[in-house]
């Protein structure tokens, strides 16, 4: 049953062009745009966390949230409810499949950086980085599940998922260089989940103190709050 549900989530992921573009294509596109503007490959590796955050947001909002809202809208979830697929299994396999896709992407991005841009993999704390990547993904997943269920109308929830995705991308400082944004927007961007996620991942990736600043605490707090909210509002019908 678990494999069947994972296969379902993955099929939905790869059959939706917007998921493929933003979740898997855009990080590579960004990598090549960035690489053209940098002299040294060594500097490029500081961007890996940001590229993974873009992918995580895309996998959570354009895939998980939008697909969940769509499944609510067409009442496919009601069909699933009449099988042995419980909400727990649906959510668990949803997380597992998207997380799997994110790890494959992370491995591919790292491989490209190593092969083409001379990235060094030595002195990395892989365990910490993996743990932080999972934490960050779960934070975005829980926010996206709240968004997918918060509104009563499933169609509106789907629209809200896309709006939130683009807001996080643009206002969150992932599409424009932070320094190029007006002061007010910089302050907003610095206090939104994407920036906290980038800070935490960068610390784990570059081997600096992840407890420096308040990003780690913010990620944990946002995860906890949206965990409760997504449970409260979850709809499997």
């Amino acid at each position, binding site marked *: *049953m678990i*494999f*069947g*549900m994972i*296969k*379902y989530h993955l*099929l*939905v992921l790869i*059959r*939706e062009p917007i998921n493929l573009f933003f979740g898997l294509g855009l990080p590579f596109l960004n990598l090549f745009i960035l690489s053209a503007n940098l002299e040294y490959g060594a500097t490029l590796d500081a961007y890996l966390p940001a590229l993974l955050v873009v992918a995580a947001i895309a996998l959570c909002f354009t895939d998980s949230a939008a697909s969940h809202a*769509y*499944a609510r809208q*067409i*009442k*496919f979830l*009601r*069909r*699933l*409810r*009449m*099988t*042995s*697929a419980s909400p727990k299994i649906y959510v668990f396999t949803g997380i597992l499949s998207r997380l799997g896709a994110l790890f494959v992407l992370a491995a591919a991005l790292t491989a490209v950086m190593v092969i083409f841009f001379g990235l060094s993999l030595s002195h990395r704390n892989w365990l910490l980085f993996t743990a932080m990547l999972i934490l960050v993904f779960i934070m975005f997943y829980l926010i996206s599940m709240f968004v997918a269920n918060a509104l009563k109308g499933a169609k509106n929830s789907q629209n809200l998922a896309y709006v939130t995705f683009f807001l996080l991308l643009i206002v969150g400082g992932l599409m424009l260089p932070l320094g190029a944004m007006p002061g007010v927007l910089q302050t907003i961007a610095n206090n939104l989940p994407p920036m906290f996620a980038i800070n935490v991942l960068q610390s784990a990736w570059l081997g600096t103190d992840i407890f420096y600043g308040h990003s780690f605490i913010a990620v944990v707090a946002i995860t906890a709050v949206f965990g409760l909210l997504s449970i409260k509002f979850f709809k499997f*019908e």
Partner: protein
Amino acid sequence: MIHIEGLRKNYGSKQVLKGVDLAIETGSFTALVGRNGSGKSTLVDIVSKAKKPNGGKISYSFEESKIFDHIGVQLQDAQFDSRLKVREIINLWESLFGGAKADLGELIEVLEIEPIMNQRAGSISGGQRQKLSILMALFHNPELLIFDELTTGLDASTRDDVQEYLKMLNRDRSKTIFIVSHYMDEVEALCNMVYFLKDGTVFDSGSPHHIKEKYSCSSLQEFVKTYIGKVAV
């Protein structure tokens, strides 16, 4: 198998079901008939646990927590994920039920699913979707089958095949069947018990023969036209 007493359901201030009494007896082929908006689908939703009633009592002859082991429901308005192929949906259901408990080959043949196996659910016609929906209801070989507008959208030939198949399931394999239908000829041909819903309550019930005799009507269509009102098809 299922006994309903005094079932009530409101949507805001609108009372849709005002105390419905109904029984689906084991081995029966029961129909529910009523005008659009009379609460038929609401009743199916409540029986299949998709909605909660505002009052009344439902007793199941099986363990209520395992309801979907015992019933298969074909839903009127629920669709399939349009991005999945029909074959993938069937595979998903096989995985969720640990394999098809019913004779899948037989179902695929009767419902003519084979030609659409490699098509995406979003590209199949309404009738083909209906057939797939019927297949999903029968997939785990449940004792009770609930069909909300069983043959709506099917062409005449498939409609006959599906009706014959369900008749055989009821007669030879002891399946209990409950249908919501707008087709009175279908109800007359298949059912041994029919409930007529009007203004949120059961107007009358009985076998088609009993109803026709009681109201001196030549057909159920005539009875419905005279006493229930226009039933949309």
